[in-house]
């Protein structure tokens, strides 16, 4: 069976590298783009099975990329998971409204959980070594809850 193709649009070098390596190891074929413009071109040429899309990107904002992908018949069927550092309600709502299939707040997840999410998206079995994914409810509002407070 051919490998599933993913286009990863993420401008931070380290984050992109980590996600790329994890996904490659998990058996996906990953192409990378570091800005919105380049990402859009890459998706159009590669026609991947999934796009992982960061929001704050040089050249073109992730939301604009998403909008253009969803408006063009050639790319409107390609699923998109938004990768965000913002984690604000409005970003999430806007992303979903623009047609994103899901969103991942990067800073709230271990990388293994993100790969797990991608796996799940394709209906694959959860890899045994991946950590248990967080409950979805807890991602909706990015109020971190493990914090120890003081008086």
């Amino acid at each position: 069976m051919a490998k599933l193709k993913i286009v990863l649009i993420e401008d931070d070098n380290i984050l992109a590298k980590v996600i790329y390596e994890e996904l490659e190891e998990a058996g996906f074929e990953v192409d990378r783009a570091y800005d919105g413009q380049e990402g859009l071109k890459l998706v159009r040429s590669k026609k991947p099975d999934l796009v992982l899309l960061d929001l704050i990107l040089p050249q073109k904002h992730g939301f604009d990329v998403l909008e253009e992908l969803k408006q063009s018949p050639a790319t409107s069927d390609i699923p998109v998971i938004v990768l965000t550092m913002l984690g604000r309600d409005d970003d999430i709502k806007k992303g979903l409204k623009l047609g994103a299939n899901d969103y991942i707040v990067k800073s709230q997840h271990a990388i293994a959980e993100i790969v797990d999410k991608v796996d799940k998206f394709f209906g694959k079995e959860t890899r045994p070594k991946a950590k248990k994914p967080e409950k979805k409810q807890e991602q909706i509002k990015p109020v971190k809850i493990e914090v120890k407070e003081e008086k």
Partner: protein
Amino acid sequence: MKEAKKKSIKKEIKTALKYADSIIATLREPFLVLNKNLRVVSINRSFLSTFKVTEKETIGQLLPDLSNRQWNIPKLIQLLKDILPKKTVVENYEVEHEFKQIGYRIMNLNACRLRVSRKIAMAITKSGREEELILLAIEDVTEIKKFKEVAAEKNRLELDLKQQKKLDKMKTEFISVASHQLRTPLTGIQWAAERFLRKEKLISPRGKEYLDDIQETSHRLSNLVDLLLNVSRIEEGRLSISPSHLEIVSFIESYLDECTALCDRKNITLVFKKHPKTLKANTDKSLVRYIVQSIVSNAIEYSLKGGKIEIFLEKKNNKFLFTIKDTGIGIPKKEQAGIFDKFFRGSNAKLIKTDGTGLGLYLAKQATELLGGKIWFKSAKNKGTTFYVELLLKASLKGGRRVLREKI
């Protein structure tokens, strides 16, 4: 005929004087008429009422001698004495004086030469000799001055407030930007450490420890960044509430389960027994969890070894009351008023835990209010603290409506 004319002139003068008198009497500005020696020739009613003196003790007196010589202001006397010989006027001369009868007053004085005909002079002064008199008008500007000062002060405060608001906005924006910019590299550290631990097979036990330390520290830093971000969100009014169905009892139980390990380590007894079997609410899950977590984790953090924490839950009409009672270090009485202030930390809390942020209770209060609830406490130093959180079973969206839609 001659006699008749005289009579008619006299009558005219009388009428004119009466007319003048009635004007003078009606004028609200106090004034007096002085002769060249500054002896009071005439006064109006306003003068009497303003300075609380009688006509009898005023008319015929020298100005400097009036009211226990309270008008004996050398510079003023000199100015008035100059009016007639030098043909000068006194214009808007400000006098501040502490009067025995009426207290501190600021007055604006205007004085000028008053030329009168012999006949009129005779009518006024009854001597008929004076032809040049001095009119001294006194305007009490105490209130106006006070008002102006208050207005200036108000202006200054408004300006300060505006400046303060601007600074607050800048600070909040700074926190927001800084938090986002901090999160990216922080996530990089966490992910890289995670991969290192997972992928490298030949890490020595010590190496693994170091990596664990990196992960733990960056996790702590990440939590702190999230906390700061929440502060800026709340202050910018960007934290909206999204109510959903929530069973409070099991919700609290599941959170308390997470605390078991920490409580065991400190040998703290955590009791959650008094509660309804179930309690259904429609409220914002993450905000409620944040509030509960904030107070419970405080109770654990600031309890000494062997302490006890009791948690109660009661339904009260359309509200529910969540009570957390601990036997911890308490909040010193004189610090209690500031406990919900941003960055505030109790002096005894700082001794126990040096790295607190002072944001937990601040955010808990903000979150409670956002949900239309109330939060309060009772505490005594070294005896313990009881926190009360009262929330609506059905969260009102009032708080959520003030949330501004954010532009990206």
